């Protein structure tokens, strides 16, 4: 998972830099911001040399982690981070990437990213250790663990999405924003108001449930009553997603930020797996919530009614189930567990306004793989997607692991469009 986090942070960072750096800046330069888990790292020496190895200049990162080295002309430069100047407890993510070759274009400033990680945690990413077979299996075990971690977060989000689809037929593109909403709530209470994160998470789950409830009560339910068609509602959900995402951007800003607690936990070793304790605990919570929701779906009256409505709303209504009431409960629970998923996602990577949207496609992949409209299918599908994403990094570069998962989504359409647990008649 932390691999994903770093790659993701780097990706987001790159995105932010792309937006932030005006292309018309005069003078070529190399610059960047050093961050470790969202915190700026200062006092690190970075030197720049020409392609022929002739030194061009050096810089030391400031209190905001920023550094900049002007270069005389466009061309290729070697940028070296002096690892001995890194503060205690911080190391390069990949030890052999202390020197980067970067291209500077005419008249533009080029951002250079060095991925940092807490010392002792970067080991899992080191590809150097994959020579012998035992360390290969260690890596597989580690990736399996990380895959479960990601899969469980996806599953939390997918349950709500799949049940909403099953009961109302709505393909909700705004479901990712429920996750972002949860993470933002927790961030607000945790960082701005100073509430402990665990309490903040509980509050945000409650608020997320209320958000889900009111979305159905005042928005989707009203639209259903007006007889809006499903395709119209799907596009409306895109409008809602855009709207919410930019509301988040407006209030939160474009850069990611971590919660106030549990940021740089030293990793612990359990068998072949090394991870921060927060990962084990959040996985435990996720698993407990999923099992709880699963049992509720199987054993309680409301749960049975929910599955009946998801299966066939008309038949459920005619056998005396209050379909609207069930749908509202599904929205409430779906919103609450999506909030939880958002908090967990924010814990393993930074909170940002795009986090929900970025995981939404993986959620769709999980839901489709498991079978649209089924609750347990979504669970199975999500975990398969999470595992697949992490395990695929054994063969494909980390930056392309999402591509693999999305390709699988397309292949599923080709060979088994109803998904693992879906039924044939839903798809035609």
């Amino acid at each position, binding site marked *: 998972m932390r691999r994903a986090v770093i790659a993701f942070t780097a990706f987001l960072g*790159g*995105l932010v830099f*792309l937006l932030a750096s005006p292309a018309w800046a005069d003078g070529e330069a190399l610059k960047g911001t050093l961050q470790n888990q969202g915190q700026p790292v200062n006092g690190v020496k970075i030197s720049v040399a020409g392609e022929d190895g002739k030194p061009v200049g050096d810089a030391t990162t400031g209190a905001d982690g920023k550094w900049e080295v002007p270069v005389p002309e466009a061309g290729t430069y070697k940028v070296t981070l002096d690892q001995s100047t890194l503060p205690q407890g911080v190391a390069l993510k990949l030890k052999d990437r202390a020197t980067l070759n970067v*291209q500077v*274009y005419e008249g533009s400033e080029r951002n250079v990213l060095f991925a940092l990680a807490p010392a002792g945690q970067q080991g899992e990413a080191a590809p150097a250790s994959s020579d012998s077979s035992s360390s290969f299996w260690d890596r597989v075990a580690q990736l399996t663990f990380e895959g479960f971690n990601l899969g469980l977060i996806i599953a939390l989000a997918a349950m709500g999405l799949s049940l909403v689809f099953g009961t109302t*037929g709505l*393909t909700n593109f705004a479901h990712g924003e429920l996750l972002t909403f949860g993470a933002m709530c927790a961030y607000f209470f945790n960082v701005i108001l100073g509430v402990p994160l665990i309490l903040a998470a509980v509050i945000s789950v409650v608020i997320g449930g209320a958000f889900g409830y009111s979305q159905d009560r005042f928005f989707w339910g009203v*639209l259903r009553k*007006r007889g*809006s*068609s*499903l*395709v*119209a509602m*799907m*596009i*409306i959900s*895109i*409008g*809602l*997603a*855009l*709207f*919410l*995402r*930019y*509301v988040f*951007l*407006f*209030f939160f*800003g474009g850069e990611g930020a971590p919660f106030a607690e549990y940021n740089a936990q030293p990793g612990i070793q359990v068998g072949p797996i090394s991870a921060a304790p927060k990962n084990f605990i959040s996985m435990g919570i996720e698993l407990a919530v999923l099992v709880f929701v699963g049992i509720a779906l199987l054993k309680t009256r409301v749960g049975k009614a929910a599955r009946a409505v998801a299966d066939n709303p008309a038949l459920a209504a005619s056998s005396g189930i209050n379909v609207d009431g069930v749908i509202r409960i599904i929205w409430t629970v779906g919103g609450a567990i999506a909030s939880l998923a958002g908090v967990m996602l924010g814990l393993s990577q930074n909170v940002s306004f795009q986090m929900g949207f970025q995981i939404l*496609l993986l959620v*769709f*992949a999980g839901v*489709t793989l498991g079978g*649209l409209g089924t609750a347990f299918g979504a669970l199975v599908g999500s975990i398969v997607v999470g595992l697949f994403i992490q395990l695929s990094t054994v063969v494909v*570069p980390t*930056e*392309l692991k*999402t*591509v693999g998962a*999305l*390709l699988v*989504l*397309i*292949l599923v*359409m*080709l060979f088994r*469009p109803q998904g693992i647990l879906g039924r044939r008649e839903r*798809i*035609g």
Partner: protein
Amino acid sequence: MDWNTILITTVKASIGLETVVYALAAIGINIQFGYAGLLNFGQAAFLGVAAYGMAVTVATFQLPFWLGILIGLAATIVLAFLLGIPTLRLRADYLAIVTIAAAEIVRLVFRSVKFSSVFGGSDGRQNFSGDFFAMNPYSPGTYGIGPISFNERVTWVLTVGWVLIAIACGLVYLLMKSPWGRVLKAIREDEDAVRSLGKNVFSYKMQALVLGGVVGCLGGFLFALGQASVQPDLFSTEFTFYAYTIVILGGAARVFSPVVGAAIFWVLLVFVGNTLSEAVSAGMLPSLFTVNNIGAVRFMLVGLGLMLLLIFRPQGIFGDKREIALDAR
């Protein structure tokens, strides 16, 4: 408040590069969604593979410009087949999910470090538009009326763009009047009925997907040439969503509505954006609004506008409510 600048940029936006690119993308979506009822949420990918196909051919492999255009077109058609074959037999929302996923795949591959020797990573590709501007018949200078004028390069791009829009609109008009177009609209209304008349529905849908992609990809070429560079993040899924907003704003299944929709969309976006940022710097808004976050407001309005349009006027400005492919299938 500098109303003069606001008005000039707004009027320029109504015929500017963004309007041209989005109009072409929206004409493509109109063929797919408006006439055939296909929910292609990956239009950005069609523009992306076309733009990159051309840029990579010229910039990376140093091959001629026209070969680049051909490769861009071929890449678009291949992408349409790749997306269409698994999904066109399934329900509408499957196509939506697959196309949006494909658009992300394309963008992630373009920006990956692994393939940066070909696609240039997140910096994209530059230095491919020389041949295009070498064909520029306009001599250096500015062209236009008073302050509403463009330099010779922009004028050339816009001329080509509006000619392509005119051709695309003419093509759509003729096609939709033809028997082929009537079958397409019939598929949108009732697929099973068309199938029972012995038409190959799958093949017609595929043709619509390819045609819409090809029209859209012309926008991709212009986007790349107009900016003289391609970057992966230009072709994000939000591009597609804005293009959908444009189609729905103008009214789906009308020949000129994507063009009018694009002009209105960009005029509103530029006008609101400029007015808000001027108002912020003039200190006329509460301190909650700053120079940094004011840009988000206009995109909030896009989302809000898309929702309100579909709730209260799904046929847009020119559309006919009976002709909108919004029924569930």
